[in-house]
């Protein structure tokens, strides 16, 4: 049996991605895959406060879940999949598994950790400005009550701890080469040209980079369109994992 471990993104993106992962998991299971969904320590329904979440911890958890999946004894092949930071987690975890995964699927992976961090921070203030409307402009107390104190960072209700901030820059620098270890990889991204350096150094991995063809804002706070499932991603993933697409 082919097992697929789904790695969550971070923060509000994980909340928004829940429906996609549920539908994707159901579709994969119906097609005969064993599917494992989980929350990292310090996220979702798992133990740990928000402050406990960091990138290295998430990678460790993904490795642990993948090894546990192997140990169950049902799987003859194992693959990892992740959206946004979950894609980065899947890629980093793949190189640490005792038996490398056969496939990696990355939906809009984070390519530049430092830029991603900047986006998270700026998105927070922009969102607060929008949701409080006119009040935000004229009420300094409201800003004090909602912005994090000097030296602390958060993004849409999720803390950006020191460890996470440091690791984003350290482990995911823009210029860093492909860090995955697998036979086949599929990356769906809006930044196809920026992934050229991955393709140049993917080594034994057959890495296919394709246009995501999606304009979904995974980090928005708005309830509108919260349950979002790009079905073409699911179809491409099924074809890729089943080896029926032209890319694997």
């Amino acid at each position, binding site marked *: 049996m082919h097992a697929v471990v789904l790695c969550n993104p971070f923060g*509000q993106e994980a*909340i928004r991605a*829940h*429906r996609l992962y*549920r539908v994707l998991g159901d579709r994969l299971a119906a097609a005969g895959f064993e599917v494992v969904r989980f929350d990292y320590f310090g*996220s*979702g*329904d798992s*133990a740990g406060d*928000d402050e406990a979440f960091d990138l290295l911890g998430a990678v460790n958890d993904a490795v642990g879940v993948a090894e546990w999946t192997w140990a169950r004894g049902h799987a003859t092949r194992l693959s990892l999949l992740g959206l946004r930071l979950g894609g980065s987690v899947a890629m980093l975890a793949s190189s640490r598994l005792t038996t490398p995964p056969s496939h990696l699927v990355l939906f809009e992976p984070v390519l530049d950790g430092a830029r991603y961090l900047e986006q998270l921070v700026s998105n927070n203030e922009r*969102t*607060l400005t929008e*949701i*409080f*409307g*006119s*009040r935000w*402009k*004229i009420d300094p*107390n*409201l800003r004090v*009550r*909602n*912005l*994090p104190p000097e030296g602390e960072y*958060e993004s*849409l*209700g*999720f*803390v950006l701890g020191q460890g996470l901030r440091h690791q984003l820059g350290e482990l995911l620098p823009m210029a860093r080469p492909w860090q995955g270890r697998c036979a086949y990889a599929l990356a769906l991204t809006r930044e196809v040209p920026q992934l050229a350096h991955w393709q140049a150094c993917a080594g034994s991995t057959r890495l296919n980079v394709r246009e995501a063809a999606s304009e979904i804002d995974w980090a928005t*706070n708005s*309830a509108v369109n*919260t*349950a979002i499932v790009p079905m073409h991603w699911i179809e491409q993933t099924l074809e890729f994992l089943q080896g029926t697409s032209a890319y694997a």
Partner: protein
Amino acid sequence: MHERSMLFGDDQGLVGTVCVPDGTARDVALVLFNAGVVHRVGPHRLHVKLAREMASHGMASIRFDLHGMGDSLRSGMTTGHGEQVVLDLRAAMDELQRASGATRFALLGFCSGVPQSVAAALADPRVASVLLYDGFALKTRRARMRYLGIRFRAHGFTLAAMRLWMRRAVQAAAESMRRVAAPSRAEAKSARDTAFAQLRSLRERGVDVVVLAAGSDYSEFNYRDQAREAMGPYAEGLRFGFLDAVDHVLTSRKAQQDYIAWIRNALLQQAQAETPAQAPAPTLMCNS
């Protein structure tokens, strides 16, 4: 505190996580479920944080996904959605009763969960408390004027702003005339009176009814006594709260802390005021 995720319900199709305090749990336990389409962890993981906070004060809880939401299966039953939600909430109370020994329950309705909580409370005598967050449209004339004042202050009194305000005023007048003429206005008032009467009947049964609103951008709620004023005679015996500096989905961590503290205090105050038939009308609590 210990937590356990499980499948439950007649079809084992509901997914939830029970959070039980160490030691003896209180007799009243908290039921948390979907806020809109967000799965059981709640907006910004709020339900997880609230569940753990309440466990530290001796109160057990369950956070779960209704049928067809989050991780739960679609219902195979032919009942309507409203009835199914009530069945799901009652199944969650059954499960929480087994896990914690609680015999009475507080339901937290978040936005679209407000009418669902009220419906379940009407159907199940074990419900001791309903906390209803941002689920009512209760604009008053004073609230409209205050919001207008805020907008004026923010946009200033320049010529461009005046033109903008003139255009908006014309649009608002036209919209107002359409609303007055629309037959749905009477229907809306009737639906609102029915909802208020349901709250009153819950209160008469001894259920603690708590109505909580967020300030957000001030377009819906913008002063402390607004909900009480808007509900008029139906407000008697209900408790009201207004979280001035938080937005509807509690985006900042400080907003989450304010909300959790408010809910915690409301639940603990009710727990201390038990023997509901003799309980005096609780005092207004407000965090603004």
